[in-house]
Each structure stands twice: as structure tokens, then as C-alpha cells.
């Protein structure tokens, strides 16, 4: 399975609400996930369980309100970056950003380091909540 195929399989699991399959498919046991900004979920998460906890919280805070339009997946030797256009509306507040999910893969073919990048971090922070 290529890195991009593994990511797509994992994202399909997320869209069904199946976080354990997402974790088993994509994340190394010792993954480190960097979530930037100043929102209530910002920080570094060490290990698969912590990373899945982050995702669960993110989905609780934003669940069902995000429209995700895939733009591009760039796959290389050790790394992958996935670009998505994210839009959402809540109580008159608009979110319209491009996210870039950056990943470094380990020798087992799973992600050992994950960065979630946004081209408007303040907007993402406000939408998640501080």
C-alpha cells in the first residue's frame, strides 16, 4: 500500500467515525502529532492513543460542521503532504482555510510525525475555541 493509499483508507475510516481503524491503518505506536496555534487542542501529542484523543476532541468540537474538499496529495520518499479546503459556518462565524496535513513515515510504513498546518491559524483557533 502506498502512503497515499494508506491515508485514503484511514480518512475513509474517519468519515465513518471509526477512529480505531484510522489509528491502526495510519499511525505508528509512537507517533508525535503537532497541533499549532492557541486553541483548546493546541499542543504536542505523543503516542497513538494521545493522537486519537486529539482527533476525538477535534471532532466533538467541530463534528459535522466541516466541509472538506480534497485538493492535492504530494507523496515522496519519507514524507507526504495532503492539502484540503475546509469550510464551515457556525452561528454566523465563517471558516474558510486551506489545511496542509504533513506527515513523516517510519520504516513500518506508518506515520511517526504529523503536523497540522493551516493558512489562517487564528481563524481555526477561533472556530475550535480557545
Amino acid at each position, binding site marked *: 500500500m502506498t502512503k497515499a493509499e494508506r491515508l485514503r483508507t484511514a480518512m475513509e475510516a474517519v468519515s465513518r467515525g471509526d477512529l480505531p481503524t484510522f489509528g491502526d491503518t495510519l499511525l505508528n505506536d509512537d507517533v*508525535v502529532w*503537532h497541533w*499549532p*496555534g*492557541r486553541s483548546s487542542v493546541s499542543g*504536542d501529542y505523543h503516542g497513538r492513543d494521545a493522537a486519537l484523543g486529539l482527533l476525538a476532541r477535534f471532532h466533538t468540537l467541530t463534528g459535522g460542521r466541516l466541509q472538506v474538499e480534497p*485538493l*492535492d496529495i*504530494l*507523496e*515522496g*520518499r*519519507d*514524507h*507526504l*503532504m495532503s*492539502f484540503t479546503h475546509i469550510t464551515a459556518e457556525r452561528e454566523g462565524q465563517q471558516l474558510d482555510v*486551506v489545511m*496542509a496535513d*504533513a506527515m*513523516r513515515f517510519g520504516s513500518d510504513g506508518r506515520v511517526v*510525525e504529523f*503536523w*497540522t*498546518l*493551516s*493558512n*489562517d*491559524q487564528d481563524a481555526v483557533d477561533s472556530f475550535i475555541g480557545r
Partner: protein
Amino acid sequence: MNEQVQLLERWLAAYGQEEREAMMDSLAEDAVWHVGGTHRFSGDYRGREAIMGYFDAVRQETSDTMKLETLEVLANQRHGAAFLHVTAGRQGRRLDTVAADAFRFDDQGRIAEFWASNADQASIDEFWS
């Protein structure tokens, strides 16, 4: 290797060698540079001049010690990614981090937008404090 990977590699080389003209040529006139974190340089820089001014300020603050080691560069016609090992020194402090940089290209293949994340934003904020 595709043209946009070459553009990003040329751009990184130009940054390392302080070739201002080559750096400018790779940037769209109205390019936007998003710098994250909560430090003195955090914020959005709009337009070539503002972006070059940001690079000049970083160079000055770090006494030219910032080094970008390319780990991997990826790109297609619309987007690019650079994974870099970044080191720098400033007032006895040391920065050593891996940065994931995202790029969007305009229809002429120039860098139109940049945003980034670092392995340890807190240490970067501390470095610039």
C-alpha cells in the same frame, strides 16, 4: 524531477546563498507569507518587499546563523511541500527543529502563499523572545 520541485530547490538554495534577485523571481508580486507562533516575527507578510524584509530581519537577528537543511521537497503544479531541518543561534540560544512548509503556486508557477508548522513551536517562540 518536476519543474516545481526544481523551483523550490532553487529557492532554498537562493535563500542559503542570500541571492536576493533569485529569491524575488520565485515569488509572486502579491505573495503572502504566514509566520505562526506568538513571537516577534509572527504574523502575515504580504507582497515581495514585505517578505524580503522579514527574511532580512531574521538574518540580522540570527547573525546569519540560520541554516535550512532540506530533508525532502515535494510538488505538483498547484502545491508544494518542503521538510527542513532548521538550526540557528541567537544571543546564546540555540534553535534546532524540523519544519514542515506548505506552498501554493500561482498560474505562472511562482510561490503565491506559504505557511508552515514546526516540531516544537514553544521552543521557537522562546528562541525569538
